[in-house]
């Protein structure tokens, strides 16, 4: 229906005049492509109008079943205030490029500076970058950082045996070009088996990674001890968490974390099929080894405070193969949304939301446990947002039946389901419990 690109504004007369100005007969003559590699086929992609496409894609997405999701395990949905959608869509933010000209991009730079600042407050660590892609790549970059810093000499990266498979695979790939190896340590009733970990950590250990909450939703009870174990072995302690958990659980700096990684997009984004925002914070001493972008405060020629990308000599466009990472494009716009969401909540709102993550999970576990054939939570721990439930019947069958009733939960073992509750689905827990009763 459209001839040419609807987003190329040229009128025919304009095109002709411009060709004339450059001394070309036609557009094709501007292409200096040898005949033997010139493409004269078709892609076979039919152009559609805007209206048609909106209908088409609306129909396509309507083929996704509408389920109430009680899903988590690293990707969490909380209610995102309208303000975030509204202002983040302003074209000055959405359609801007990286801030290579800080004099006309102070707005975005300040938002990123504020994002970093919030993470500094929440982690207690003085350096936070503008973002990694997601929690998995943030963890992987942390391992690579442990391999670069001087005070650590080892090559072993220790991760929990329960590490999320996606994170593990990314980590393996990110260390594949280094001397680092990844090993697991055991868990004990949903928390780190601290004694077993202590045995495994040695001077050849580059990094110890633990999570709070864990992937199974349990709150880790002996974080300081883990920090001490790592510290005693001159090993980095990397703590995985998320931005809501940071509002209530132990402050990472206070338990000796050297690097904090995790998902920050539990705030700021709806569930988006795993699209993330990797948070990355660390100690001052590792500043020049940090991967990714950093925004710093400086001064302009008028002596006024101004923000700019800084310490760029760490980065690939300057340091090339000696850069701290290959990351260039990151998740800046997600960071903007997350910062706006945190600001919308404020300290009271964030703490309250985090508290609800504990209480709602506790109530739901109790209600499910009241049912015949379900014991929840499996681990005798406090939980954050989610918990594992044991089911007498095969978990796979229950989950499948629940899906028919309109609910999605995780299957994490033959007789284990994992259930996650946030402010988005908390009003539907009664229905979930009823559905469980139905299918058990």
């Amino acid at each position, binding site marked *: 229906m459209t001839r040419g690109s609807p987003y190329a504004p040229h009128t025919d007369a304009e095109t002709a005049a411009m060709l004339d100005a450059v001394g070309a007969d036609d557009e094709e003559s501007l292409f200096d492509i040898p005949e033997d590699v010139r493409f004269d086929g078709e892609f076979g*992609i039919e152009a559609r109008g805007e209206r048609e496409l909106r209908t088409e894609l609306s129909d396509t997405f309507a083929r996704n079943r509408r389920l109430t999701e009680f899903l988590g395990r690293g990707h969490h949905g909380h209610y995102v205030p309208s303000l975030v959608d509204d202002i983040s869509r302003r074209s000055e933010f959405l359609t801007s490029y990286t801030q290579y000209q800080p004099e*006309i991009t102070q707005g975005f730079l300040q938002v990123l500076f504020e994002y970093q*600042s919030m993470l500094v407050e929440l982690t207690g660590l003085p350096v936070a970058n503008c973002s990694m892609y997601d929690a998995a790549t943030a963890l992987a970059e942390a391992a690579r950082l442990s391999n670069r810093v001087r005070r650590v000499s080892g090559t072993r990266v220790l991760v929990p045996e329960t590490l999320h498979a996606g994170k593990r695979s990314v980590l393996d790939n990110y260390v594949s070009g280094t001397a680092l190896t990844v090993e697991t340590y055991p868990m004990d009733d949903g928390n780190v088996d601290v004694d077993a970990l202590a045995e495994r950590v040695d001077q050849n250990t580059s990094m110890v990674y633990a999570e709070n909450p864990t992937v199974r939703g349990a709150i880790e009870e002996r974080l300081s001890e883990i920090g001490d174990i790592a510290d005693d072995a001159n090993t980095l302690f990397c703590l995985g968490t998320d931005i809501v958990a940071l509002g209530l*659980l132990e402050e990472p700096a206070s338990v000796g974390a050297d690097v904090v990684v995790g998902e920050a997009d539990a705030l700021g984004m709806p569930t988006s099929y*795993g699209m993330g925002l990797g948070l990355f914070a660390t100690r001052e001493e590792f500043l020049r080894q940090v991967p990714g972008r950093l925004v710093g405060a400086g001064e302009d020629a008028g002596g006024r405070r101004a923000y700019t990308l800084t310490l760029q000599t760490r980065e690939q466009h300057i340091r*090339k193969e000696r850069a701290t990472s*290959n990351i260039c494009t990151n998740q800046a716009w997600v960071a903007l949304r997350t910062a706006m969401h945190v600001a919308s909540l404020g300290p009271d709102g964030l703490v309250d939301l985090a508290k609800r993550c504990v209480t709602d999970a506790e109530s739901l576990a109790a209600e499910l446990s009241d049912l015949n054939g379900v014991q929840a939570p499996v681990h005798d721990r406090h939980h954050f947002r989610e918990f594992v439930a044991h089911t007498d019947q095969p978990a796979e069958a229950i989950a499948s039946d629940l899906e028919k009733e309109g609910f999605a939960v995780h299957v994490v073992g033959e007789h284990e389901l994992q259930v996650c509750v946030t402010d988005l689905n908390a009003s539907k827990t009664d229905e979930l419990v009823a559905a469980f009763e139905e299918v058990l």
Partner: protein
Amino acid sequence: QYEPLLAEKNATRVEIDEEDSPLPDELTRDAVELPDLSEPELARHYTRLSQMNWGVESGPYPLGSCTMKYNPSFTEDVAADPNAAVHPDRSARSVQGSLELLYDLQDYLARIGGMDAVTLQPPAGAAGEFAGILVAKAYHEANGNDRSEVVIPASAHGTNFASAAMAGYDVVELPSDEDGRVDVDALEAALSEDTAALMLTNPNTVGLFERDIVDIAEMVHDVGGLLYYDGANLNALLGRGRPGDMGFDIMHYNVHKTFATPHGGGGPGAGPVGVVEELAPYLPSPRVRERGGNYELFDPEESIGKVHGYQGNWLVLVKAYAYIARLGDEGLADSSAKAVLNANYLASQLDYEVPYEPFHHEFAATAGDRDAADVAKRMLDYGVHPPTTKWPEFVPEAMLTEPTEVENRDSLDDLAHAFNAAMADSDEELANAPSKTTARRIDQVSAAREPRLSWRALDADGE
């Protein structure tokens, strides 16, 4: 004009007391201190900050090799469909719509690049490079053929070097020949049995098509290496040349430059990777396939595993699909034609030398004896966004310029005026520029010398 930081407006420290906490004291932090502002205050703060920022709807964004073209508004609405907001652990049967879109996008990209198989997982171009190089590595290793080097032209994007290094390769840097293209003799010398891959951008970073591409491909393949296509400049070739037809084995796509997904001030992006049939088994898992009318996720047999915790930047992929479908064959081809026309027209209006020709979608003008960065700062005073400066390095005082197809003649003329006027201004005017912007020239060196990276750091400084 100055906007205080959120924390400077109002911040509150909220103590977490055991009595109204659902957790024992030892499991919680002591307090949270954060900005504490109402919605009207926040709305003004962020609105004001947006007004202190430049987007592509503010005017041209002619950053060579980076650039921004207009991001169609409707793609945002499409991506905001609540039915598309699903969790990545949903069963495949319950997200057939999402999988269908991903499948079709894999297919579109394969056709556009002349590739046989595509992964959508890499969350950015650099992640795509890394994934692509890991695929090459896995391929070589599977063939019992460990290799240690990746060859990259000096003019390539920094990510190429960094990605190859991250995968554990040594980088062999290749000089440009005097025409600005790959020096074939130097390439000959650089290639060996150790060569895992040659990474190439085509057209290259000064807009020149690598005319010897068929020979180059043969040379690389002759030593058992693979040819990697950096898709940054694919937007110049749509409908006129496909990497797969030129002998490339692996490529990544740059969705923001080629398919108009918004760059969001630095991301999120997406860096899908296409490969030839032989390399398909090594692609990241999972990919999407269709079986009997149903879509399912599958792990390629020899998959390298994952480069993202889930399936990448879903929302960006949706927007890329919508853009491609909006344009279709003719629109895509026209976007390249007009991008190349615009670059050539703009260059024709400039009082600058452009040392390397014939360029396509972008060109490297030289500021000659002026400092390119100063000229760029002065351009800001003329109300436009300047080009990329001082890169690539083999062009003296380079001003790498890429206007894209979305500019009309008036807008290019305005841009040309800013270029020419800045060049005609005095050294003093250049040194004092910019003066009409939100901030004046920012001292990046001192900002880096004493990094202050949070409001806490400013506080500590007594600021």
